[in-house]
């Protein structure tokens, strides 16, 4: 990350905007291809169609939470309320309808309302009260888990048949969750890159002071990052509820680290600024395939963890390598 801050970002921004997007994209693609080749050589079963269709929904989930985290990271923040937010969406969409399809849409709306409220709370705490985002979102995460316990008592509930079909089903041979992830990616890419609001959002992330000097409403843009992020967590939660059929009340816990990992792997600076939604989503596929690879190699659990760590290091290493090459070229 230090590489990011020492690079003359201003120069990049003027001259090499397209180059930069290509670079992060190419890096992730390169890492993914290397991984896929490794899969073909060492664990061919992990790239069989059956294995892919089984694991793609989980890649889609990581991609969706990654997109939410991306927006917050772009504003130089961190959203640690993700586990609570996803778990709450899971709990609301399973406990409220109690396996009654007719109540599903109400449950989803209710989940959305909860998540929006928390998003606004996060946004107000960080942008208006200037609280550190990590502190503020840890607090709201506790609040979210309190709600999770109040609603469920920590007890899992079986999802409705309709939701299981929507989230866990397949259309044209692809898991439905993948379509949701693709839709979310298209939406974020378009909004960020092709709309005035999106361009301002990125500019404010790069330099809030400059944004303020330009007369932009910096605080409201920062606040909205947390609100939009919650929408994605809500979507992810509802999808998990459908995919796993009998989710636990703490299903969001295991998603926090991957959400940050894919944002970093996707090439977005933790200091804020430019975001790379497509690379983030590809990184989600990379990360998920990596764990499938480790599972399929058939080595002890300790070795699985080491393989994952090494491959993650490799992914980030490739990125840094290309980055320093670029710096040499420009200087």
């Amino acid at each position: 990350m230090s590489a990011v801050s020492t690079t003359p970002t201003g120069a990049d921004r003027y001259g090499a905007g397209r180059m930069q997007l290509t670079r992060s994209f190419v890096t992730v693609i390169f890492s993914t291809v290397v991984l896929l080749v490794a899969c073909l050589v060492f664990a061919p079963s992990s790239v069989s169609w059956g294995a892919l269709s089984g694991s793609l929904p989980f890649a889609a989930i990581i991609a969706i939470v990654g997109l939410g985290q991306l927006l917050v990271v772009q504003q130089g923040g961190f959203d640690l309320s993700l586990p609570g937010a996803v778990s709450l969406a899971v709990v609301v969409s399973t406990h409220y309808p109690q396996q009654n399809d007719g109540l599903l849409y109400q449950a989803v709306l209710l989940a959305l309302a909860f998540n929006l409220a928390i998003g606004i709370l996060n946004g107000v705490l960080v942008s208006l009260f200037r609280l550190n985002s990590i502190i503020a979102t840890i607090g709201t995460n506790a609040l979210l888990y309190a709600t999770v316990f109040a609603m469920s008592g920590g007890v899992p509930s079986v999802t409705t048949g309709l939701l299981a079909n929507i989230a866990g089903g397949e259309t044209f041979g692809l898991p439905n969750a993948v379509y949701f992830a693709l839709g979310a990616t298209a939406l974020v890419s378009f909004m960020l890159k092709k709309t005035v609001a999106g361009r301002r959002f990125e500019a404010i992330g790069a330099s809030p002071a400059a944004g303020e000097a330009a007369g932009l409403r910096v605080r409201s843009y920062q606040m909205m990052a947390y609100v939009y992020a919650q929408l994605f967590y809500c979507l992810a939660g509802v999808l998990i509820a459908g995919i796993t059929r009998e989710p636990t009340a703490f299903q969001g816990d295991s998603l926090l680290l991957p959400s940050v990992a894919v944002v970093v792997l996707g090439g977005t600076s933790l200091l804020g600024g430019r975001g790379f939604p497509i690379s983030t989503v590809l990184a989600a596929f990379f990360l998920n395939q990596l764990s499938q690879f480790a599972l399929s190699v058939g080595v002890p659990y300790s070795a699985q963890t080491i393989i994952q760590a090494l491959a993650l290091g490799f992914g980030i290493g490739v990125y840094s390598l290309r980055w320093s090459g670029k710096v040499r070229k420009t200087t």
Partner: protein
Amino acid sequence: MNYANLKKGLAVSVATAVIALGGAGLAKAETPSWCGPKKATLALLDGYGGNSWRQVTTASGKQTVELCPSITKYEYADGQGDTQKAISDIKGMAAKGVDALVVFGDAGPAMLPAITSVFKSGKIIVPYRVAVGGKEGVNYSKFIGSSFENDGVTWGKWIKGVLPKGGNVLFISGPAGNSQGLDELKGLKSVLGPEYVFVNQAPFAVTNWDPALTQKVLTAEIAKNAKIDVIVSDFGPSLVGALPTFTKQGKSIPALATSDGNSLGCFWQDNNASNPDFKLFTVATGNDNVRLAVQWAVALATGGEKPKEQIFEAPAYEDSVSGKPNAVQCRKDLPGAIYMSSALKPEDQAKAVGQ
């Protein structure tokens, strides 16, 4: 003669009535043998009370206590997964003057110092299910463990019955290295010979008992192994979301040896027709472990007769092949997260889990 007969008849009927009445009186006042005459108070201390299994267990414990009129007061505390709180709960209960404590020591040996100090102060303390280390009579009054090895043996015997010629076994358990999974494996290996090949990495496929991770693990294992004949899992309900992966990959769900749960039973009923290899065998999930622990605590505190069992052995519960001891159970009108094997009535369990 007639009069004598009448007298005899009268005498017999009076005697019968007396016996019947006496019997009824006895039945009414019947207390279990483990419930002695001495008055005492009892507390149930949970390390973590936040899931349906624990809620059913807690309700079972309470029901057992209520069978003994000598227990004048019953209290409950939930450590909420916080070891510090669980320790202070134990010490707090003892300080309040509770005579007998039954403890689910989730944190394991970390709980031992608190348990020992309470025992040394002269209280009856019975940890159960999770091993806390220490010795009976030195650190606590009695430890009521659960024989997970016995579960493994029970599963192994069933597998031998349905796959007499051997086959590929996939064994999945919770977090890496958890002692429950290792004990179960010991039991399985004691029954199954080399003709049964464990296709998972040793000692078991790690799932953390998380349904999402279980689904990923199963996906990888199905793709890797062309043939899985039987799955062994120590938490059946977590498989409900994962088993359809077989259907998605164009295979029949294989035989399954696991622990029971309402959602799993219903899943079997919905899917066994379209999956010819899907045979289901379950052992009771062990909510009743707490009953034995409470019985011991009450017996020691009230001067009752000590129960014969020293360790809880989960009985076989459902078998879709023989229908013995039970056919597969499903109550669609009740929540999925209850356990039909528990001695607590299903309706009461639904109440306990708040649905």
